[in-house]
């Protein structure tokens, strides 16, 4: 298991690498924006001001206003909270479900492995966004259902990575020794295999955060994700299309927010992989 000094050392190594540090900085900005958003802007994200509709960026409204006079900066900060929430909970949910599936499949092998992995193959056989669309069409568009949909499409990826690593670790001598000593499968899986199978799962989870944020924005953009009045970056971009020739800032800033956030998670994930997964 990763100990406290080991995790400190990992963070130090990530900070020392300028590329990873840049990714971490972008991710940190997102987290700060999500946590301190309401403090950073003096406007409520859904407060309309019909005297200041489609106002360009100015000292009053740093990133301008939309067609209802709502402050774009406040809405982007509020959207950061939604993106982070959806990303973290959906990936967390996928790890919670996918990790035990991969662990059991990889450790037990045989029929258990075949059945569990065929189920995962079916989920993987759907293009991610289409499966998410199907789930939100069936369950209805909402924040909770968006999280469920994205967690479902992430689960097989986590299960596959865990299974592959579990199979690798299970064949090592110390695991065989534990079996010979008569430890139960559950004890071996949780105490000997899992701690040593976690690194690639962690790397995959960090990369999935980026794709989950993009998927959430796709669903919101299509009107099938988080519903108004909650502002999301995707829904802001959808609204921007109607005013694209008069208010370009409505398209620039939410798009840039998605781009920089996803870029941050991708760079951070790449850096984490270089540090944790020497095979890559």
């Amino acid at each position, binding site marked *: 298991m990763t100990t406290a000094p080991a995790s400190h050392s990992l963070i130090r190594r990530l900070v020392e690498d300028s590329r990873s540090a840049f990714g971490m900085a972008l991710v940190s900005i997102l987290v700060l924006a999500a946590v301190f958003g309401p403090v950073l802007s003096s406007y409520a994200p859904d407060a309309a001001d019909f005297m200041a509709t489609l106002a360009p960026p100015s000292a009053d409204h740093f990133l301008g206003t939309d067609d209802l006079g709502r402050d774009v900066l406040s809405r982007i900060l509020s959207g950061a909270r939604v993106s982070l929430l959806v990303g973290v909970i959906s990936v967390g949910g996928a790890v919670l479900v996918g990790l035990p599936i991969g662990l059991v499949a990889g450790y037990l092998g045989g029929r258990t492995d075949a059945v569990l992995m065929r189920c995962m*193959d*079916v989920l993987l056989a*759907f*293009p991610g966004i289409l499966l998410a669309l*199907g789930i939100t069409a*069936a369950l209805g568009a909402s924040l909770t259902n968006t999280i469920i949909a994205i967690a479902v499409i992430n689960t097989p990826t986590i299960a596959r990575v865990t299974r592959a690593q579990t199979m690798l670790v299970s064949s090592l001598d110390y695991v065989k020794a534990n079996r010979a000593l008569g430890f139960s499968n559950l004890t071996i899986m949780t105490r000997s295999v899992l701690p040593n199978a976690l690194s690639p799962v962690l790397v995959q989870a960090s990369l999935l955060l980026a794709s989950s944020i993009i998927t959430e924005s796709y669903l919101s953009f299509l009107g099938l994700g988080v519903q108004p009045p909650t502002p999301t970056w*995707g829904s802001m971009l959808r609204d921007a299309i109607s005013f694209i020739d008069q208010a370009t800032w409505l398209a620039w800033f939410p798009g840039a927010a998605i*781009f920089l956030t996803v870029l941050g998670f991708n*760079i951070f994930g790449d850096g984490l992989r270089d540090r944790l997964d020497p095979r890559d």
Partner: protein
Amino acid sequence: MKLIVTRVLSVIPVLFGLCVLSYTLLAMIPGDPITAMLGMDATPEAIAALRAKFALDEPLPLRFISWFGHLLIGDLGRSIQSGRPVLSMVMTAMVPTMQLGLAALLISLVIAIPAGVISAARRNSVADYSVSLISLAGLSLPSFWLAILLVLFLSIRLQIFPSSGYVPIGEDPVGALRHITLPAITLGVAMAASTMRMTRAAMLDVLNADYIRTARAKGLPFRRVVWKHALRNALIPVTTLVGLQLGQLMGGVVVTETVFAWPGIGKLTVDAIFARDYPVVQGAILASAVLFVFINLATDLLYATLDPRLRKRA
């Protein structure tokens, strides 16, 4: 041969699973799907008629068996909105989607292969760093944002390309080309980003191989070694990635088609969801997933054919 047969047979349970999942998704609709389709104001007669039509009084497994039986003879049901057979709607929508997919693939290869080769051949140069940075940016770029920016600059400001719509290639080839350009660039850029990375990685592997060193030692020009000897082998793993991406393209297609009003399978799915036309949603999602499975199968088989090591093992 054994490898190929095993791979082809492995598709059967996955296809069956896809059918079960597609059907179950619709069964998951909270409450009565008929009310969801017709709305709260529907008359009891209309509800009863539709309920009988879809055999909703029967248990779920029986309904699935009946639906699956129809599916096997190519009957995906009829659209609630238009009454047209779903299969015909899906097949009609597949044509523009495939055209868009192939155009995007072409654009991505034209950008990615030369960029990946140059990046690997000039490792740690400015060109290499630029390609790495561009590919990372391309991977992080949300396709609908790129689509909006392309429309803003190339359609609204410069008025070079139309902002939306579709023209069949048989009717007006020039018009078709103008209409497909922006959506194809939108999809192609994301594909190019991954292909660029893969080409670079594969080329770096190959450039370190003994036979390349031998070719260089024989005095062959570096350019010829790179483009003729190395690229040929580096393209094998790239082919796999391109195939997989073509499958994943189905996802990007949904958003791109919606932005550009491109009448493909993605737009059909989204429109059907909003219209609560569930047989069409079911058919379109199933058809896209089946296409995805077959593209992945074709990619695996192509890889087995291209890679002599796998061919020998097979």
